[in-house]
C-alpha cells in the first residue's frame, strides 16, 4: 500500500486542504471498487524477508505462526534436494513470530519456501485421504453406521 502513493505524495497532500470534498469522495469510491474486486479483506502481511538475505540464502519471518507450521515446514523444505540448509526458530516466546532460514544450492530461497508450502499441503492431502478411506473401511468392518 505505501508504495502506491509515493509518486504523488507531496503534491496531493498540499492539495488536500483546498480540494472540494467531492474529489475525495471520488477517490474513496475507486478504493471501494478495488476492495470489492478483492472480495476479501486484505489480510495484514504475515510473511516478510529479513534484512541481509540474498537470493539463495534468506530468512523469513512469519507472524502468528508457531511450532505447528514451523517444524513441519522445516522438515518438508529439508526434503528438497536443492536446499542446503533449513531451520526454524521462535526467537522469543512472547512474540507471535516464527523465523525460517533457507539456504539453497541452486535456485531461490523463496521458491524453496513456496514449494515447501505446496508439498506440505500435498502431504496433508495424502494423510487426510488415507485417514478417510481407512475410517470408512473400519466402519464397514465393525458395522458402525456413520
Amino acid at each position, binding site marked *: 500500500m*505505501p*508504495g*502506491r502513493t*509515493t*509518486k504523488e505524495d507531496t503534491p496531493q497532500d498540499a492539495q488536500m486542504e483546498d480540494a472540494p470534498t467531492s474529489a475525495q469522495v471520488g477517490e474513496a469510491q475507486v478504493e471501494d471498487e478495488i476492495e470489492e*474486486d*478483492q*472480495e*476479501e*479483506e*486484505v*489480510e495484514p*502481511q*504475515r*510473511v*516478510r*524477508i*529479513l*534484512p*541481509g538475505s*540474498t*537470493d539463495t540464502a534468506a530468512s*523469513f519471518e512469519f507472524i502468528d*505462526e508457531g*511450532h*505447528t*507450521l514451523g*517444524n*513441519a515446514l*522445516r*522438515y*518438508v523444505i529439508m*526434503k528438497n534436494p536443492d536446499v542446503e540448509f533449513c531451520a526454524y526458530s521462535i526467537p522469543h516466546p512472547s512474540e507471535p513470530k516464527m523465523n525460517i532460514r533457507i539456504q539453497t544450492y541452486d535456485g*531461490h530461497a*523463496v521458491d524453496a*519456501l*513456496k514449494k515447501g*508450502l*505446496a*508439498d*506440505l*499441503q*500435498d*502431504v*496433508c*492431502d*495424502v*494423510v*487426510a*485421504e*488415507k*485417514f*478417510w478411506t*481407512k*475410517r470408512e*473401511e*473400519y466402519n464397514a468392518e*465393525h458395522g*458402525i453406521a*456413520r
Partner: protein
Amino acid sequence: MDDYDMMDGAGDQPQVKISGADSTRVEFQLSKTNLSFANSIRRIIQAEVPTIAIDLVEVEVNSSVLADEFIAHRLGLIPLDSSTANELNFTRDCDCEQYCEQCSVTLTLNAKCQSDEIMKVYASDLVVDGRHSSNVGKPVITDPDGLGCLIAKLRRDQELRLTCIAKKGIAKEHSKWMPTSAVGFEYDPHNKLAHTDLWFENDTDPAVEWPKSKYADWEDPPQEGEPFDYDATPNKFYFEVETAGGMQPNQIVMSGIDALIWKLGGLLVGLGVREPEKEAGAGGYDGPRSPDMNMDGGTTPWGQDGYQSAYGGGGQTAYGGGGMTSYGGGYQTAYGGRTDYQGSSWQ
C-alpha cells in the same frame, strides 16, 4: 508431482491404520512420516480446529449464590454441537456490526426455583434459537437422563435469567473451544531412541515404575546388548483422539488436517502464488517490492533499506476469487470438496 522423493510410489506415502474407534474416540497409527509432521497434526487437532462455544453472556437476573462471571465461565465450557461449525463465520470475518445469526447462536436460560428442594440447572435447560436448521450450537447431551452438564444450583426464590451468545473460535484463543478432551501421542514405546529419560529411584525397579504401553507389543523389543542406532528416527506415531463431545472424533482429525491445509494455502496466497491470468493485472501494482522481481537480479542482497515484503507484487490481486484455487487444487479432488465430510456421510 515432484522431482524428488516426497511421496512418489505408495510405499513412501504416509500410512494410516485405524486400530480402534467408537463415538467418542479414534485410535490410529500414522507411519512412514516424520516426527515434525506428526506433531503438527497433534498440535493442530488440539489448538486450531474451529468449534462453537458460549462467548458472551448477558445476565438479566442472577440471584443465585454464584457470581455472574463464575456462571459465565461455566457456560463457556459447556460443549456445544460443532459438527456443522463450518456453517458459521468467525465473528471477526462476518459483515455484521457485532454478531448475527451468520456468526453466532443464541441460547437463553430461564430458571427459577419455586420449591423447597434445591433446583439444579442443567445444560439441557438452555434454549437454542431456532434460526439454524442444523444442530449447530445445541448443548451436547450424552448422559442417559438427558440432562447435560450442571450449570448451577438454585434455592427457593433464586432465579437465573440470561442470554448467551455462542461463537465460533479456536482453542488457541481460549481452551473452551478445544474439540478434544485429550489427544494421545506416542512413538517408540521401547524408548530405543532414548528420547525419554525414564528416571527412577535407585531402590525401585524401572520396569515397574515405567510400565510398557499397549503399543509396546506392536514394535520389536530391543535385543539384549543391542548397540544404539544413532541413525534411527521415529516413524510410527500412535494417536488417540478423544472428543469433548461437540464433534465426531474422526471429524476432528479431518478438520485438523483441513485447518493445516488452509493455513498453508493462506500463506501461499500471501506469497503471491497466483493464477496466470491474474499475472497481467498484478504487474501494474506498485506495491511493496517482491522477491519475485529479484529473480533475474543475481544475488542482490534484499532489504538494504530495512524490511521488505515477501509478498508478491500481486499478493492482493491473488485474493480476488482466484485465491480460492490455490487452496483447492489437489485437495478438493482428494476427498471431494471441503464440505463433503460435513454433509450426509457424517450424520
